[in-house]
């Protein structure tokens, strides 16, 4: 079965690349006024998109734990700032997913 091709979602990387191109274009000063403004507007949208992407992550460290029922769940853990060591009494650090 052939999958229908969907429009790829914009990635941070692509947006940044487009923004770079727009900036270069504007700096070259070869565009007309309307075009310059349209490009600029597009650039601002891309920059906002990128800033948004940078703030998407939620700053957490989790570990997978296998429960008594055999189900695997992610559990948030505390980590020592200096050493990066996991510092959480509620977590079974010897457990694996086997």
């Amino acid at each position, binding site marked *: 079965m052939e999958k229908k091709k969907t429009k790829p979602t914009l990635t941070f990387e692509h947006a940044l690349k487009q923004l770079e191109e727009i900036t270069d274009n*504007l700096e070259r*000063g070869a565009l007309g006024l309307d075009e310059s403004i349209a490009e600029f507007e597009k650039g601002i949208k891309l920059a906002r998109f990128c800033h948004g992407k940078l703030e998407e992550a939620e700053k957490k460290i989790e570990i997978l734990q296998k429960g008594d029922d055999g189900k695997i769940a992610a559990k948030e853990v505390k980590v020592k700032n200096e050493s990066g*060591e996991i510092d959480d009494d509620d977590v079974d650090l010897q457990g*694996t997913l086997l």
Partner: protein
Amino acid sequence: MNENIYTITELTRLLKAYIEKAPAFNGVWVSGEISNVTYHSSGHIYLTLKDENAVLSSVFFKYANRNLTFRLEEGMSVFAQGNLTVFEKRGSYQFIISQLKLEGIGELQKQIEQLKKKLLEEGIFDPARKRPLPFLPKRIGIVTSPTGAAVRDIIKVAKRRYPDIEILIAPAKVQGADAGISIVNAIEELNRPEWNIDIIIAGRGGGSFEDLMAFNEEAVVRAFFNSRVPIISAVGHQVDHPLSDDSADVCAPTPSAAAEIAIPVKDELIDYLFNLRGRSYTALLSRIRELNFHVDGFTRQRVFRNPLEIVSNRNLLLDDTEKRLIFAMRDIINTGRNNVLVLPDLVRMMHNVIKDKTHGYLVAVNSLEKLSPLSVMKRGFAIAADSGRNIVRSIRDIERGEDINVFLSDGSLECTVNSKTGEQFHGKEKN
């Protein structure tokens, strides 16, 4: 009774001397299985070697065992070299080990080579199939021991480079008999779509050849290859890299290095984005100024003397979207109104745009003033225009004897060009 009566000590010493001097026992190699091993706090290791029919009590002193790269475990088949001696107090003989090797290490290496050949032919190591890592991962999956150095190193690097990044650890045993299956299991788990992982880092800190064996196991090497999520092999090694390095999308010499490869520096990205935005504004502003340069008296307009005054006096709606401002500005330009009206709008727009709510990134007010054409001119810069009011950018735009206007912050000068000096000539252009 015979007069040759030895004391126990005498006999034992004779025996000891005999055994220690016997050339057949000097530096002898034995093969056997470790049946009993004790790591003493002094650093010496006491162990028993055995085969089906006999046992040999042995000691591996601290000075001799300090180069041992793996931990001795019961059941290991080993080759040991050493000398025999007699332990007088117990009346037993003992093997003093000088060096010890895992039996079958050569065999293991041969197996790895064969596996490597097979997987190579299958295309598992094909560089062309390796995928690039996503540039900005949101969620990193780690396959390693949650108590090892690797996980700490990765977390430290991640916190430094991108404090907000999400990390999901899939705990795995990274050495021992069931390490392989444990690693495969963890990689497969992180590949499940529900965990939303962007990049997997799987590995462990450095160790001996034996320690890293799990990453040479066929199932593990294939799990790296089969990972739907782009995966980095991060096994600390000095000489021989494990086969997982070849089947992963990317390999790193240490777990820290893998984190450096996978995780961008957030602050650098933010700076770069602001830099691009700033360059775009500046470019757009100068383009607008170029295209609408009606210079007559513009510097006398109050708005140019203090653009911020306009912003504050009119109590502008700073929450307006940039889009509306840009459209409004475009209308103004399109309907051909005096450009004097355009610039306050630009100032307003700049103020809006620069005031970035999501980051609380506030550019200082003076950066606005720096962008004002007047303040640039106040610093001593001038704008030259020809008789057709076109800005003069190059000495080639003007002929000798032509009249030009030079605009300063407080007015303009009408000038005639007497001569031209080009930078590339380091002197006067002769014409």
